[in-house]
């Protein structure tokens, strides 16, 4: 299971399917796909794993069911690498 890193306010702006996000912990700004932003907001609402997120966000991703969980897994690892989320 993953949850949003405490202290992240998710200050962000989205234009045409791409987003920028201010990282409150590092002070960096990240360029993200709009779908990655959806994952972050979903994890802010409640902790989840990749399978749970795949069920909630299937329509936002252009991937088959089998691929979707592994795709979300990869995105979660990348978001964790930016200190935006952490395991719980």
């Amino acid at each position, binding site marked *: 299971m993953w949850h949003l890193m405490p202290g992240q*306010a998710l*200050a962000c*702006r*989205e*234009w*045409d399917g*791409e*987003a*920028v996000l*201010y990282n*409150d912990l590092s*002070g960096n*700004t990240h*360029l993200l796909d709009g779908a990655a932003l959806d994952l972050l907001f979903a994890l802010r609402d409640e902790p989840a794993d990749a399978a749970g997120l795949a069920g909630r966000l299937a329509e936002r991703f252009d991937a088959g069911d089998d691929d979707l969980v592994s795709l979300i897994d990869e995105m979660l690892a990348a978001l964790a690498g930016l200190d935006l989320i952490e395991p719980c």
Partner: protein
Amino acid sequence: MLTVGSLSRAELAARLSGDGLVLRTGPFINRIRSDVAPLIDSVALMYADYPVEPVGGFVDFHLELRRSGGLRRWYKSQVHFAYDGTTPFQPLPLAQAYPMLEWTMNWCVSHRAHGYLIVHAAVLEKHGRAIILPAPPGSGKSTLTAALLGHGWRLLSDEMTLVRLDDGVVVPLPRPVSLKNTSIDIIRAFRPDAVLSRPVEETTKGTIAHLKAPGASIARALEPARPACIVFPRWEAGAAIALEPLPKARAFMQVADNCFNYQVLGARGFTALGGLIDASDAYTFRYSSLPEAMALFERLVLGDA
């Protein structure tokens, strides 16, 4: 209103070597003190139209440029810069005193004026719409700026675009435009009316000359402008003119990379830059011909590009 141009050379020299020349540039008050004689003529030429404020009032930046003491005063004399009693720069040869004054004035703004998001960019205005040109050195930003200034554009800044954090408007800081190397002769040929400072060779940036800011731009220095476009220019020999839309999120990241204080401002900088990107169309722009580029900017500012 007292201006530098209304002071005699003797009065100007007395202020610089005494309590200081208190010079208003855009929203800032600079108190400049110096005993470097060649600086007097450059300041008299380039800052003739700028307001002089009385001594003793509020000052944003205290700058001091002094000649070397001791043997250095007579052999390979240098100029030393002090800011509020600190010396953040290495001394430079005396001949570079005027470019050094410009660089130190830029340094004061970029390191201290954190009521603004400061983008390393030229910014010009026409018909109430400001076009921002962020670009690294060598992109042709200053050459293009200098060319446009001869054709009715207002100079807000050649080097630092000040986006006010409170309301997102661009606050002017019209100062001399820095031209480097081949740009100097290009602008001399393109604008025979241009007033340039004496070129200074062998600086860290090559040969430098400054173009005097238009009097009309200085007169409107307290009048902000609304941002309309952000254009990333790139001069390329022989290239066909090309203006390509830049997706806004990518424009955000590229402008952030060109800011002096985006990291310093933290979340406030993020909010301010988001507002700037909201208000502006963003483009990449490649050109080789100044007249073609100028014609395109005329269309761009009318929203017709």
